[in-house]
């Protein structure tokens, strides 16, 4: 048999989910404090944690750093080989004044150094670490503007950008099914775009006293549909892209259409409330709660439609069996909302006119939004406890070389994913019962220059 005049058009808008900072945080100081910085963040990571903080310091700040995380995730003690994430973080806050009115612009970037963006489409029932497998593999960019109408109030807002890929693939030509390596001639065109999606971020910081801060921030939701469309031949069997089979000397018109659509990228609405207190000048204690509306999650397990038409002539009836093709429907993920408490403590161990040295610890707990995977699908997730520690060294006496200060921050973070048992409703489920557990080890360095 020989396929004759094959034409395929594939359209793949294929983003993947979420942003890496939701999982690992941004900037060494903020990560070391468990992410509990919404109330009083003022370095470049304010562009993620709370845009209002961009204007807080009133000085030009530029930071750059490196971040890395490795995963040790297992299913039934077998490694899931979740890829590590590492890359560069950078950002700046640029202040300005119009009279007594203070404002600032901010910019932040997270750039993975292995891949700018990755698309990974897995078989519907294959177990995958839904919130870690492909989620952090993308680039994040945020721009903000913030104002300080009164000394005790700051308001900021802007747009976050994430990247995803869009691919248009066209194939035309002939395939010899019997000897494809010798008898086929195909032309193809590929058009790939790295495009961005945008979502809003707004935040407020309130500072009623010198030793007390409050903050609230909202990060917007986004969801994108990943679509794969393939067409072989023409629906009516005629035209420039007509396809068919040659069986001996008999031409059999054929037509195949495939549509696969699913939600490939999703970030939930998020609201964080934070408070920070300095009971003594050397000690900062912050608490925070983040509400993530995962209950709105649209499952990545989507729609598949297949249509195969082969018009057999009477003499071939019974000699070629056309297999039945089953369509599939989207499957609800059934996620629930997540509430994440955070705690961060910073102790200034030494401070004088030339030097400041800080020690930091932090903790947060994430309950898993994923239900027990008792059905046929396996969107694996467990709770997570994350402990972090870090240190910061600020060099102040750098004039005349630097009219300001230079700060180095270091962080280490350990995430523990306690074992979660998945018991299937069916006694003959193809995946069977399993236990999911894991560890995440992360670390990084950040350097920030502050111009006075």
């Amino acid at each position, binding site marked *: 048999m020989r396929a004759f005049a094959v034409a395929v058009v594939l359209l793949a808008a294929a983003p993947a989910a979420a942003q890496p900072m939701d999982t690992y945080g941004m900037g060494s100081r903020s990560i070391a404090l468990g992410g509990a910085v919404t109330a009083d963040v003022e370095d470049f990571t304010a562009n993620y944690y709370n845009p209002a903080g961009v204007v807080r310091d009133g000085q030009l700040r530029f930071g750059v750093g490196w971040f890395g995380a490795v995963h040790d995730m297992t*299913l*039934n003690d*077998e*490694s*899931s*080989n*979740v*890829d590590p994430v*590492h890359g560069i973080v950078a950002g700046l806050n640029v202040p300005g004044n119009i009279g007594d009115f203070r404002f600032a612009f901010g910019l932040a970037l997270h750039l993975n*150094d*292995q*891949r700018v963006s*990755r698309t*990974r489409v897995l078989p519907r029932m*294959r*177990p995958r670490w839904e919130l870690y497998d492909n989620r952090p593999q993308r680039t994040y960019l945020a721009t903000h503007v913030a104002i300080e109408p009164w000394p005790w109030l700051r308001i900021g807002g802007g747009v976050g950008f994430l990247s995803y890929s869009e691919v248009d693939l066209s194939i035309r030509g002939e395939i010899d099914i019997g000897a494809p390596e010798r008898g086929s001639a195909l032309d193809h065109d590929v058009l790939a775009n790295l495009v961005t999606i945008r979502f809003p971020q707004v935040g407020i910081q309130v500072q009623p006293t010198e030793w007390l801060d409050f903050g609230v921030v909202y990060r917007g939701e986004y969801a994108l549909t990943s679509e794969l469309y393939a067409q072989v031949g023409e629906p009516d069997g005629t035209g420039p892209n007509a396809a068919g089979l040659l069986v001996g000397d008999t031409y059999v018109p054929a037509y195949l259409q495939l549509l696969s659509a699913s939600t490939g990228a999703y970030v939930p609405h998020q609201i964080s409330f934070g408070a920070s207190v300095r009971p003594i000048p050397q000690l900062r204690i912050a608490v925070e709660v983040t509400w993530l509306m995962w209950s709105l999650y649209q499952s990545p397990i989507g729609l598949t439609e297949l249509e195969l038409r082969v018009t057999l002539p009477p003499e071939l009836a019974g000699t070629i069996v056309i297999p039945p093709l089953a369509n599939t429907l989207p499957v609800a993920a059934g996620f629930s909302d997540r509430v994440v408490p955070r705690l961060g403590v910073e102790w200034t161990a030494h401070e004088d006119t030339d030097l400041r040295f800080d020690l930091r610890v932090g903790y947060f707990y994430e309950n898993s939004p994923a239900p027990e995977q008792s059905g046929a699908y396996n969107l694996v997730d467990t709770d997570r406890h994350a402990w972090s520690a870090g240190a910061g060294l600020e060099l102040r006496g750098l004039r005349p070389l630097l009219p300001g200060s230079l700060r180095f921050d270091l962080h280490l973070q350990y995430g523990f994913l306690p074992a979660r*048992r*998945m*018991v*299937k409703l*069916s*006694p*003959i*489920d*193809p*995946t*069977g*019962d*399993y*236990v999911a557990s894991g560890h995440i080890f992360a670390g990084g360095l950040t350097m920030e220059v502050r111009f006075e």
Partner: protein
Amino acid sequence: MRWRRVVPLLSLIAACSTIGDPGGMPDGLPHGGTGAFRLLDAEEIGIVGSLPGRAMVLRDAVERATPVDGYLFYATARVLDEPPPLPDDQPPNDIFWAAFEPRRIHRGEAREEGFGGFASGPEVLVASDAWEGGEVFDPFVVVDGGTARLYYAGLGGIGLAEAPDAGGTFTRVGAAPIVADARHPSVVRGVDGAWWMYYEAAGAIHFARSDDGRAFTPMGPITLSDDDTGEGTELRVASPGAVRVETRGDRTLIRLYFESVREGITEGELSHVFYVAGSEDGVTFERYPIPVMEQSDVRFPAPVLVDDRVTLLYGNLPFFGGAYLTRAVVAAVGPGGYRFAAPSTPSP
């Protein structure tokens, strides 16, 4: 001057770190024993032959074979010196037993090289009781503490012999079948801790229960859901091979592999296709709708759990050891993507 060297070095390191990789895939995903099973290849099993998955080199006729504790128990028979002619209506994939001596049960030992292969061995049980009808076959061995129990079939039903261990000398228990008019026994510890025997009788799979592994009380046929998506029409189910599974979900399941005898796949012939079903109570089984192996004439499933993910499934495929169809013992692994480490030198 030092900075002029450090900066290019840091740039080089940073550039190298941006080289992408294709991304990791899991070492081994959880698997529920549903397949698809793949016949072991010669490199894995250590036997070079014309039939993929062949687990034992044997020219004599052989049907069911079940492994236990490094041994393979199987019933076999040699072709007669002067066999009768093959009748015209002989099913092409069935052994023409009239051309062979009466079947006896043998015990082979595991081969040192490869994984899952066995060398043929001596006979361990020969028909002697009247109810056996002159031959014994369908062996299934369970080792329970200091006793190995060999359940086997004769023409009158299922009998029992015991030995101190699987490599010992077997002695019959009683002079009558422990389950009459039955064959293809498969015995496991049930979910209640008792011994449960699954067997074939009257074109269906039945089960019997025993507290001591010797005296069984027939309980009737199992309940099996019938929603399968395979080709053809199922006429009956046969030849159960059961395995008890302790899952990571802290529960006990019975997984039952069996033959689905079907028509409509190959014109003019009945096909034997392996399916699997699971049960939490050992009585009501839910069938996995897709065949566990792609072969359309594979018989006598005998599963062995390698670990909680990998299952080795012994079966039997058509093979000509001489002038007559003798069939052959084969081994398959599920999940099919799993590979056993290859031996250094496969041998015939």
